[in-house]
Structure formats: structure tokens, C-alpha cells
């Protein structure tokens, strides 16, 4: 079995996001592998280590040249090889699922792992759209995963709680917190990763056409009152807060 693990490069959670000419500008921002995608990379490695018949683990990134860093990190964590569809254009998740589906087919992949919600688009669509293009089932928000032959079992979150599931490969699994604790690449593995294959694909071969345009982007600066109440006298502070909630914010009776 070959596993495809998707890697998106996003701003570090603590990085400040800038807007330039009404678009998000990532120049100078600290960029990292999306944390949710990292759970997917780790899970692929663990499935192999747990004895599942994993032939190859392939990491895929679609995006600007700097995405190589995210792929090198995935290679250093232990994936076997990487594919980079290098493009400066911004595509929506449903459009990008075309690339994912085509690569899954040409690379003979039977399991795709992708983060449940990417920290740049705040989108949950890539896994589901890829599954639909391939005609595969999907398991989203997965926090436990086992493979026995062709059978996937595990647990995932749903609207009102969580479910345990069983499905048969091929499938798409979206990953999240709780699934595992991603490993740090060791120095020897970082050195080894430099010799691993990082193939460049031409985006033109995938026939991409963005269907969603970004018209405008603004930093959220909702004005907050920032009214501080002195906490030295707890009773007085509690009274004052409740009074503000009643009379000014009008949120309690």
C-alpha cells in the first residue's frame, strides 16, 4: 500500500499576519508545516511501524517554492519521497483536490492523510473533495486509526460526540489533535532527507483553474473595550463585573 500525506505550509500560530494590497502577505512570516497535516505525516509513519503493509509514504505539497521546507521536514520525519507541485497561484481547496486525486491515481495510493482544517484557508474541504473525485469514502476528524489488511478501523468526532468506524481501503482520512504526537526530525534524519527524492511537478499538467477569487482581505480588529477592573477586592470586583454585564453588555438578567 502507498500512503499519500498532504503537507500545507502555513504561518506559525504566533506569527503576525499582514495584509498588503487587500491580500494576505506572507513575506517574512515564520512558516511551518500545518499542525493538522503533521498528524497525518506522523500517522503514516506509525502505521508502517505498527506492521501495516506500507510500501511507500509520499508527501505532497502544492504551493510556492518555499513549500520545499515543509516537504524536507516531512522527509526528515521519515516519509520516503516528496512531490512538489510548484505554483505561486492561490487555489481553493476544491480546485486543488484535482491534483490530489490525479497524483493518488498515478502513484497507486490507497490511503490519503490530510489535516482536518488547514490553518491558512480555515477550510475542511480538501480531504472530502479529494475523496469525491476518487470515488472513495472519507473519515474526517479522526483521532484513532488502525489498519488490518484492507480494513480501516478507528474513532472520529462527529456533530454530537464521536463514533467508532470500519471502512475498507482505499479511503481518505482527515487527521487532528489526539491522533498522535508528531516526532521531531533528528539531525541524522535531516541529513538523510537531503538525499531523498523531491520531485517537481508542473502545475500546468493538472489543468487547474481557480473557481473562487479572493476579492479582499482584512485583519480582524474588532474594537474591544479593554476595561480593566481592579481585582484586589474580590467582592467589589465581582459586583462591578456583574453590574457591567447587566447594564452595559446586557447579557445577563
Amino acid at each position: 500500500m502507498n500512503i499519500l500525506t498532504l503537507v500545507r505550509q502555513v504561518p506559525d500560530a504566533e506569527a503576525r499576519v499582514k495584509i498588503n494590497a487587500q491580500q494576505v502577505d506572507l513575506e517574512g512570516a515564520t512558516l511551518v508545516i500545518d499542525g493538522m497535516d503533521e498528524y497525518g505525516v506522523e500517522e503514516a509513519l506509525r502505521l508502517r511501524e505498527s506492521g501495516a503493509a506500507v510500501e511507500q509514504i509520499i508527501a505532497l505539497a502544492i504551493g510556492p517554492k518555499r513549500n520545499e521546507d515543509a516537504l524536507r521536514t516531512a522527509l526528515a520525519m521519515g516519509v520516503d519521497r516528496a512531490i512538489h507541485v510548484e505554483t505561486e497561484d492561490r487555489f481553493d481547496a476544491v480546485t486543488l483536490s484535482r491534483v490530489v486525486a490525479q497524483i493518488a491515481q498515478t502513484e497507486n495510493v490507497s490511503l490519503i492523510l490530510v489535516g482536518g482544517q488547514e490553518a491558512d484557508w480555515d477550510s475542511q474541504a480538501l480531504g472530502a473533495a479529494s475523496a469525491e473525485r476518487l470515488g472513495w469514502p472519507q473519515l474526517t476528524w479522526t483521532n484513532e486509526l488502525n489498519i488490518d489488511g484492507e480494513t480501516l478501523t478507528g474513532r472520529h468526532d462527529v456533530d454530537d460526540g464521536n463514533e467508532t468506524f470500519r471502512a475498507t481501503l482505499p479511503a481518505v482520512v482527515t487527521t487532528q489533535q489526539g491522533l498522535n504526537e508528531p516526532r521531531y526530525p533528528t539531525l541524522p534524519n535531516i541529513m538523510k532527507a537531503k538525499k531523498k527524492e523531491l520531485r517537481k511537478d508542473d502545475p500546468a499538467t493538472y489543468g487547474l483553474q481557480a473557481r473562487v477569487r479572493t476579492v479582499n482581505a482584512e485583519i480582524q480588529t474588532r474594537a474591544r473595550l479593554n476595561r480593566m477592573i481592579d481585582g484586589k477586592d474580590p467582592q467589589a470586583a465581582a459586583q462591578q463585573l456583574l453590574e457591567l454585564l447587566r447594564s452595559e453588555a446586557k447579557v445577563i438578567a
Partner: protein
Amino acid sequence: MILIVAEHTAGKLAKSTLEMVTAARDSGREGPITLLVLGQSVAGVATEAASVADQVLVADLPQLATYNAEVWAAATAQIAQEGEAHTVIIGGSRSGREYAPRVAVKLDAPYLEDATRLSSNGAALQAQRYTYLARVTETVEAEGPVIVVTVKPGSFAPAGAAGVAGDQYDVELTLPAPRVEVTGKSVEKSSRVALTEADVIVTGGRGVGSPENFSRFVEGLADNLGAGVGATRAVVDAGWRPYAEQVGQTGKTVQPKAYIALGVSGAVQHLSGMGKSKNIIAINKDAEAPIFKVADYGIVGDLNEIVPALIEASKR
């Protein structure tokens, strides 16, 4: 027509469905507003739906007794095609955002995800949505014979009843067999109001100190205020509270009228889940905690003293 897939639980129409009706009315898209009710034994839901929509399409089938992404996507896409819908609106719940992309692919439609506002600009449908862990508000647009949209819960006012109840029609569907087998389910029940529907939420972070303090302070205050109970990721990771209470990027997104954060430091991932609350109240002994930057009201002080005082005062 504008096709909305109704969300409902326990035989009742969900508030999110009424919000989607408002989103449809606000969208500037023309044509009748049609609610699609998928489920089993949903006659009551369909009647409720008829009070807010121009027409209601009902698929009352045993295969629809429980939600499944592939089945819901197939049903929605089939009805959208047969009804020549130009706009398909689906709830921005976990399940809605799971099957909506499949509908978009089936219809070869552009997909506007998790919209907080909708408007028309010529032939284009424009949506506002939050990105970059909700630090940025983007306006995106798409055109096409049909567009699929999900609507973020809590972003639109619930629609009131229309003057005349819409007509109800039964629909026939060709559905695929579900390929994911659910082997067990754990429903996280709470006697308190659901986080995504609560007007007031009291959330505890690691600063609360212990699971016992969480019960005493967070639940104690929430019960006095009739509020929902939330928790930060750190608290859930530590095993103090169930995941169902987690607010943030990997948990729930909420926007109550008042969000009371006790001992919460305010990591970006947490802010992305609650930063759109109307009023944010923070109590923390660390004056440098980032949560104070987004707070409307803040108290720097000891929870052990302030929260009991707050619980006592809120009883009266």
C-alpha cells in the same frame, strides 16, 4: 431556486436551519427558497420547515435514518440537479462541511465555505469568511450556474416565519450504499445548553488549577448564569474535561453574547474559536496574558477569591 439542506435533531428543526434561511434571503440570489429535509420520521420537521420556506422537499426514508457523508452528498446533488438549483446552502456544522465539498465536486460547482455574510455582485456570489485561524476576514466570490455554500453557525439571525406556509413535496432519491460502517457511538450529553447555541459561555483554562476547581468555579458560575461550559485544549489534553467542551481551532467555534474566560491565557488557536464573541470577559492572575488584549472586561486577580464572590453575587 435556492436549495437549503435542513439541519434537525431529535425531531426538531435546528436553529442553524433558520439562520440559513436568513442567509438565503440576504444573498441577493433570486428564486424560491426551498428546504430539503433528509431523514426518517421527519413529518414534524417538514411542517416546521414549511413555516419559513417557499417550499419543502421531503425525503423520509430508512436509509436516511442516520447521517452519512456519501449518502447526504448524493441526495443533495440529485435534488439540486433535478430542481435546477443555482445556489445550494448547507450548514457549517462538522457534518455539513464534511459532505458539502462532495456536493460541489458532483455538481462541478465552486464552493464557498463557512460564510459569515453573503451578497450578490452581478453574477457573482460573494461570501465573507474567516481565514488564518480567524485572524483575517476575507471576501471571496464565485460565479457559475450553481454554487455550493456552507454557512457558519451563529452568523445570521434566525429567520422568522413567512406569512404563508410553503407547500411540501415528497421526493424520490437514488442513494448509494454507505461504505463507512459505524460500529459504536458515544453521544456527549450535557444537561447544560449546547455551546454553539449558548448566549453565555463560561470557559476554564489551566489557570483554574485542577479538575475539582473546574467543577467548582466554571460549572458553578455557568449554572448560576444558565451558561454553557467550555474548556481550552490544555484542559482537555490534561484529561480534566471532555473534548466536547473544547473551544478553539480543533474544537468548537462559538460566538455567544458573553464569553467568560477563567484562567485562560489566550493562545491563537483558542482565540480562533471564540474571538468573535460579542463580549469577552477575562479573569486571570497573569496581567500579561494575551486574553486581556481581546477582552472587553478584564479582572487581574486570584480566581480562588474572585470566582466564589462572582458565584455568590450572581445568585441574587
